[in-house]
C-alpha cells in the first residue's frame, strides 16, 4: 500500500484560481518524496489537502490508507505536520508547545511529558526548553516544529518548506534529522524550493509548476532525462580541433567556448579514462578535466521553461 496516493487531485479557490490542477501522485512507504517548485506553484495547497486542512475540489487522495475527505480523522492520527514558517506561539516555551502537541494527539500526561523530554533532547533543545519560543533562532524553531510533529510517532511526515530561510548549517541539521527519521521507518513528504535539498534528501522528486506535476522521478533519472554528464577538456596547446576529432569517438561533441573541448559522455565518470588515454596516445597533453553533471535546475528549466528562484536564506541569526 502506498503511503500517499493522489488521483487527479484538484483545488480551485473562490474567484476561480486553480492552485492544484489534477495531480496524480504515489509515494511509497518509507520513501522521501520532495515536491519541488517555486513560490505559488501549488506545493503548500497540495500539502494542505493531503493533511486534511483543505478540502479538494476535485479528485481524491489517500494518506496512510485513509481517504483525506471521508476518513480525515484517521489521516490526522497517522500523520505529523510541520508547516511553512514554523507556526509556533512565540509566548509559549518549547516544552509547553511539545506537551500541548502530545495532548492534541491524545497521549496520557506522563507519557506526553516523557516523549516531550526525549524529543527536546533529540533536537538538542534541552537547554532552551523553558525559554519562550519568541527568543529562538529560525533554526531552533524549525527543530522544535519538527520535534512537535513527531510526538505521536507518525507513519507519514509532511514538511512544508522545512528549511526555507535557514542558513546552510541549520539547513544541514534539519536534513540529517529527516534522513534519520526516514531510516527509522517514517515516510517523508516535503516541499521545497531548494534544488540541493531535493537532490540530497529525496528518493524521488516531483516538479510542480503552475499547479501541475510536470516531471517525477529519482533525481538521477530526472537529470539523465535531459542529458548525460559533460566532460570539459582543456589542453596545454591550442589543438582543440585535433582533440575534437578524437573525442567524437566517445560521445556527442557539444559547442564550447574559450578553446575548451566539450563532449557528452553516456557512461559518465566511467567514460573519462578512455578519453584521456586516447588523447595521450595522440600526443595531446591535458591541462584540466571537468566532469559536469546536469543539475535539477537544468531539469527544471527543461520542464518548465524557467529557472527556480528560491528565497534568500536569513543571515546573522544566533542560536
Amino acid at each position, binding site marked *: 500500500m502506498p503511503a500517499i496516493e493522489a488521483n487527479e487531485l484538484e483545488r480551485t479557490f473562490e474567484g476561480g484560481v486553480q492552485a492544484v490542477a489534477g495531480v496524480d501522485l504515489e509515494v511509497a512507504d518509507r520513501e522521501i518524496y520532495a515536491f519541488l517548485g517555486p513560490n505559488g506553484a501549488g506545493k503548500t495547497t497540495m500539502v*494542505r489537502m493531503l493533511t486534511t486542512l483543505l*478540502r479538494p475540489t476535485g479528485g481524491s487522495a489517500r494518506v496512510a490508507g485513509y481517504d483525506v475527505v471521508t476518513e480525515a480523522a484517521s489521516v490526522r492520527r497517522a500523520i505529523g505536520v510541520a508547516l511553512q514558517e514554523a*507556526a509556533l506561539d512565540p509566548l509559549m516555551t518549547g516544552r*509547553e508547545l511539545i506537551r500541548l502537541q502530545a495532548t492534541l*494527539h491524545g497521549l496520557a500526561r506522563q507519557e506526553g511529558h516523557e516523549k516531550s523530554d526525549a524529543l527536546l533532547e533529540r533536537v538538542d533543545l534541552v537547554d532552551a526548553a523553558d525559554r519562550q519560543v519568541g527568543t529562538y533562532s529560525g533554526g531552533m524553531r524549525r527543530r522544535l516544529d519538527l520535534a512537535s510533529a513527531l510526538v505521536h510517532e507518525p507513519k507519514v511526515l509532511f514538511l512544508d518548506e522545512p528549511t526555507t530561510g535557514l542558513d546552510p548549517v541549520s539547513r544541514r541539521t534539519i536534513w540529517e534529522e529527516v534522513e534519520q527519521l526516514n531510516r527509522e521507518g517514517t515516510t517523508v513528504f516535503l516541499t521545497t524550493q531548494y534544488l540541493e535539498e531535493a537532490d540530497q534528501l529525496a528518493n524521488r522528486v516531483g516538479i510542480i509548476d503552475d499547479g501541475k506535476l510536470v516531471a517525477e522521478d529519482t533525481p538521477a533519472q530526472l537529470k539523465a532525462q535531459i542529458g548525460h554528464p559533460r566532460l570539459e577538456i582543456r589542453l596545454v596547446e591550442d589543438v582543440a580541433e585535433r582533440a575534437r576529432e578524437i573525442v567524437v569517438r566517445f560521445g556527442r561533441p557539444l559547442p564550447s567556448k574559450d578553446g575548451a573541448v566539450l563532449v557528452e559522455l553516456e557512461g559518465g565518470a566511467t567514460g573519462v579514462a578512455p578519453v584521456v588515454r586516447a588523447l595521450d596516445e595522440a600526443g595531446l597533453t591535458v591541462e584540466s578535466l571537468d566532469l559536469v553533471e546536469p543539475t535539477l535546475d537544468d531539469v527544471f528549466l527543461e520542464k518548465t521553461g524557467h529557472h527556480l528562484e528560491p528565497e534568500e536564506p536569513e543571515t546573522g541569526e544566533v542560536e
Partner: protein
Amino acid sequence: MTATDLRVIAALGARSVKQTFRRPQLLAPIVVFPSILLAIQTAGAGRAVDLPGFPPVDNFLSFMLAGAMIQSTLLAGNSGGIALAVDIEMGFTDRLLAAPISRFAIVLGRLAGTAALAGLSAIWFIAVGLIFGASIQEGVPGALLMIFFVVLSGVAFGGIGASVALRTGSASVVQGLFPLVFVILFLSSAFFPDTLMLEPAASIAKYNPLSFIVEGIRDPVISSITWSVFGKAIGALALVGAIGIGLSALALRRRLRTGG
C-alpha cells in the same frame, strides 16, 4: 466530545490564560482599564446615588461593581477574539486543525480561557470593591453568583469575538470592535440606571441584553436575590451565548470548507 477533546479544551484554556499574563497589553483591557474607569467614575459621580429614582444602594461603588465586571468581560471576549485571529494569521490554528481532535474544541479552548480570565477579573473586582467600601448584601453566596454570571458572560462574549476572528481571520478587524464595546456598554444599565437616562438611550438600555446580564450580577450586591432578575440574566446570557457560539460554529465550518 471525547476525553481527549476535554483535555485539549483545558490545555488550550490554560494556554490562553498564560498568554494573557505573559503579554501585559492583553491584560490591560481586562483589569487595568476597567479599574481606572471604576475609580474615576466612583470618585467623580459618587453623588449620583442621591438622584431621585436611583436604585437603593449603600454607595455608588456597590452600584458600579457590576458595570466594571461586565466591561472587563466584554473586553476579555474581544481580546480572546484578537488572540484567536493572531493564531489564525500566524498559522498556529493549522497546527491544531491538523490534530485528531474535534475541531470545535479549538474554539471551546479559547472560550474556556476567556471564561477563566473573566472569573479572575470578577474576583479582582469583588476584592477591590470590598476593600474600598462596597458591600455584598447576599454575602458569600451572592459573590459566588456574581462570579458565576461573569464566567458565563465570558463564554457568551468570547463567542462573539471568536466568531468575528474565525470569519475574518484578521486581528485588526476584531480589534476594530473595541469602540463598539463601549457603545454597547453605555447604552445599557452598566454604568447608570436606564430609568434615569434620556430617550432613546433609555429604551435601548431597557431592552439591551447586556442590561439584563448586568442587573443579574448587580442584584446580589444591592439587595437579596430576585428570581425574576436572575431568570432574565440567564435568558440574556443564553441568547448572547447561543448567538456567539452558533456564529463561531458557522464561521469555523466556512473556514474549513473554503480554507480561509
